[in-house]
């Protein structure tokens, strides 16, 4: 643990939560420092939520405004549901990072900078005519300028490392300093450094030395007159790890295959922001995790359809443009009635759009975007760790109903992280396959009377040989059929099968009262922002409740009756009103919208302001 013998009097304040933003050049290691900090807060027992933010370019010119990369974390007690709106603390590694982020800071916020980085050249690149650390323009903030380069060089002067090697350690100086400010344990980062530089012990020693030097600097200098103690979150005992949404998807797919005692087959093609699913699965390549990097999005889904035909749990991950390319093949999976999990990590569209930015704009494509009458199941994950539960649920439904299921995630969920409690085997859902009759009684398109699912058979199973395909199938026998009545019957059967998935949907949980002035209806990644806003509004005495929809298609059966118990309904979405359109057509209601299409998540302040605006108008 930290050395806590206070050599001087330092004021320690108690906080419920705080938001810290790390910002610097995209090559600065900002994401690394941020995730180390996140792990330390988790081990300290805080609830946390993180969000990285990087430019689309891998390395924009150093010091330029366009090259600023960010990592935001909010941590503290159980009220933390999002990475926070405005940071209370900005850690700016250079003038550009300060320039880009200053507009998001409230007056009185803390700015910690590397004052050595504020050189005339760097200031010019960031568009500063004079040094903001000296010209008084930051008078409304609490600015802590630390000459990090000088101090790092001082700490490592006898290390024998080159000048470049020394300066690469400087991020850990500021990290050490922050650990002191928030009383966080150094152990996880120390252990991480040792593993990372296993083959270069001199670099490991140098980085650890710099980390400790930063911590000691904060302890001894009087620049830091305050430490903060964050309230902890009452957590369920168990094993935890930090997972991003994309990692959670990958682990859910592996888990689902293990529960089914099948191989997991994932055919995918690299695409931002979904590639980490493919990469995470690739790390777990094994006899029972088959990862196939296909030549394109179409081959990716088709190989997965092949794997489903071959009797394995099949999945594919993608983002909007890729989902468009996979569309025809989704139709094949629907008519062949094969189970398939498709993860669509939404980003700003259309076309290449905003590849690294977040949006919720593929909802209608997921529900309706195919030719012919082509229903399938659509689910939406609500938080990085919920990507695990939602993906697991998708796999369970896919094999139980022999249908493709699309899981909607997005850029915000995919790269955001939060602690994930590792479930015990006994807590995981049970998987059921459609019943398989004896070969003599088997017909490829006979159906389980309960779910309407057809039996799943695959090459290798003797006595069940059949021909699957994209041509319309005759009911029960599965032969090719051009019969008009049969086509209508099969169309209805496919629709009815998907409609029966409503039986899997638990009663909708209402946050707040079951009736009142305003109901906020959300779906997907806006969960944290909506819950935070509604919680604050309720504390302020406003009559508002919220629900969050995971099952997009089919929709929860109780949705209409819940919405009708409120005088008004508000649907915040990161699109121009796609869920609102579905709700309106299904329930003949006129919900209000809060729509943001900026490639940025809706934050709780925006939801709260809208709630206040609506209820003030009452």
């Amino acid at each position, binding site marked *: 643990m930290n050395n806590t013998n206070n050599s001087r009097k330092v004021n320690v304040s108690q906080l419920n939560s705080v938001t810290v933003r790390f910002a610097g050049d995209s090559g600065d290691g900002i994401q690394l420092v941020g995730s180390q900090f996140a792990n330390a807060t988790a081990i300290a027992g805080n609830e946390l939520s993180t969000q990285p933010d990087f430019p689309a370019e891998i390395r924009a010119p150093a010091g330029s405004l366009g090259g600023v990369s960010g990592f935001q974390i909010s941590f503290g007690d159980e009220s933390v549901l999002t990475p926070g709106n405005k940071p209370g603390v900005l850690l700016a590694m250079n003038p550009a990072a300060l320039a880009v982020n200053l507009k998001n800071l409230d007056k009185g916020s803390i700015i910690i900078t590397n004052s050595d980085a504020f050189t005339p050249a760097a200031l010019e690149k960031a568009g500063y005519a004079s040094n903001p650390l000296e010209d008084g323009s930051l008078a409304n903030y609490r600015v802590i300028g630390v000459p990090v380069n000088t101090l790092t060089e001082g700490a490592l002067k006898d290390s024998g490392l080159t000048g470049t090697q020394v300066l690469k350690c400087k991020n850990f100086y500021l990290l050490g300093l922050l650990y002191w400010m928030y009383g966080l344990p150094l152990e996880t980062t120390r252990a991480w450094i040792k593993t990372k530089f296993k083959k270069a012990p001199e670099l490991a020693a140098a980085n650890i030395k710099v980390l400790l030097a930063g911590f000691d600097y904060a302890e001894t200098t009087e620049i830091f007159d305050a430490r903060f103690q964050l309230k902890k979150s009452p*957590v369920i005992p168990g*094993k935890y790890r930090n997972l991003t949404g994309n990692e959670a998807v990958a*682990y859910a797919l592996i888990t689902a295959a293990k529960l089914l005692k099948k191989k997991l087959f994932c055919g995918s093609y690299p695409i931002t922001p979904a590639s980490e699913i493919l990469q995470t699965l690739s790390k777990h390549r094994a006899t029972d995790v088959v990862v196939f990097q*296909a030549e394109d999005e179409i081959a990716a889904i088709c190989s*997965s359809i092949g794997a489903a035909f071959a009797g394995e749990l099949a999945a594919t991950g993608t983002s909007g443009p890729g989902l468009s390319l996979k569309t025809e*093949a989704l139709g094949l999976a629907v008519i062949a009635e094969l189970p398939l999990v498709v993860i669509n990590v939404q980003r700003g569209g259309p076309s290449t759009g905003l590849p690294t930015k977040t949006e919720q704009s593929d909802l209608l494509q997921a529900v309706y975007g195919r030719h012919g009458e082509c229903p399938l199941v659509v689910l939406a994950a609500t938080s990085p760790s919920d990507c695990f539960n939602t993906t697991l649920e998708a796999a369970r439904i896919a094999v139980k109903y022999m249908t493709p299921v699309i899981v909607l995630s997005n850029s915000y969920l995919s790269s955001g992280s939060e602690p994930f409690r*590792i479930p015990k085997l006994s807590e995981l859902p049970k998987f059921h396959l459609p019943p398989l009759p004896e070969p003599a009684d088997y017909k490829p398109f006979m159906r389980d009377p309960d779910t309407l699912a057809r039996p799943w058979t695959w090459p290798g199973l003797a006595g069940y040989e059949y021909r*699957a395909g994209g041509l319309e199938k005759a009911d029960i026998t599965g032969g090719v059929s051009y019969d008009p009545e049969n086509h209508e019957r099969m169309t209805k059967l496919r629709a009815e099968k998907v409609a029966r998935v409503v039986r899997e949907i638990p009663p909708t949980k209402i946050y707040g009262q079951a009736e009142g002035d305003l109901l906020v209806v959300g779906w997907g990644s806006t969960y944290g922002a909506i819950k935070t806003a509604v919680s604050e509004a309720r504390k302020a005495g406003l009559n508002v409740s919220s629900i969050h929809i995971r099952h997009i298609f089919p929709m929860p059966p109780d949705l209409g009756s819940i919405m009708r118990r409120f005088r008004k309904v508000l649907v915040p979405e990161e699109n121009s009103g796609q869920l609102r359109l579905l709700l309106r057509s299904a329930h003949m209601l006129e919900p209000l919208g809060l729509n943001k299409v900026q490639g940025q998540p809706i934050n709780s302040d925006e939801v709260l302001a809208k709630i206040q605006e609506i209820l003030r108008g009452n």
Partner: protein
Amino acid sequence: MEETKLTAKNFSSGLPVKWCPGCGDFAILAMIQKTLAGMGLPLEKYAVISGIGCSSRFPYYVSTYGFHTLHGRALPVASGVKLSNPELAVWVVTGDGDGLSIGGNHMLHTIRRNIGLKIVLFNNRIYAMTKGQASPTTLQGSRTKTTPLGAIDYPFNPARFAVGLDCTFVARGIDNDIAGTSAILERAAKHNGTAFVEVLHKCVPFTDKEFDTLKDPATKEDLLLRVEHGKPLVFGKNRDKGIVFRNFRPEIISFKAGTVPENVAVYDETNSEMAYLVSGFTQPEFPVPLGVLKAVRKPSYEELYYDQVKAVGDTKGHELEALLAGPDAWEIK
């Protein structure tokens, strides 16, 4: 289960075959059914996968597991099947439009990987199912519904396309040559890795005259070059013509039958460069090569994949909780 030897008949689904009378596909179906029977696997271990087009109706006529997929997409579907279960014999039936136009990208990547699929590409030089549009193998000048003034596209030569991609097994047959084409299919069945077999056949309604000269007993032996590993490249009704290479350029020489000059090239199916030159032979300059053009041994994709996995160690028995925890979990009590 009791071992019974399957015959070609066991591989018939019994469904009425709906190709046009006189279509070459009938002969190819019979040859493939016989080849499958010869492989000696139980029925359930075969999967026949196709795209869209006349030839792609194939799986419906075979009694094994089958999948009639999307236009151009048979290969990725089949790759998923093979990689999921490498024990299966996975055959892909495609055509010149399905396999080389809409599915061209998949063809070249499938061949690049050397995944163990047996690909039979039916080449009739036309889009037949959509009723007569030019395909990527339609010859220049051919009049079709989309090329009323004659096709201007340069056509693909499928066998050479595959050789050019370093496919490990490439062969060409023709629908009426039952003995020759059956022998090719038999070798393809035994090949480890991707086998690419082009089968020439006409389309009765749209390319009725195509390949006629290659089938006419009066002309065919002068127009066909039957390549055989280790044998000189000799052809002609009287077997009095041969291929020589001068400065890598092929030339036809004539000689007295029975006295093959020493400079006539001896075919070597393991020589990619020779396969490239010979597979490029087209009418009217050169005879059309038939037979196994290339056969080399290279590890297949599925072998490499599962060898790599074996090296990592079998994780089947791994505890799920340990896997989920990873190296950096923490415990809260």
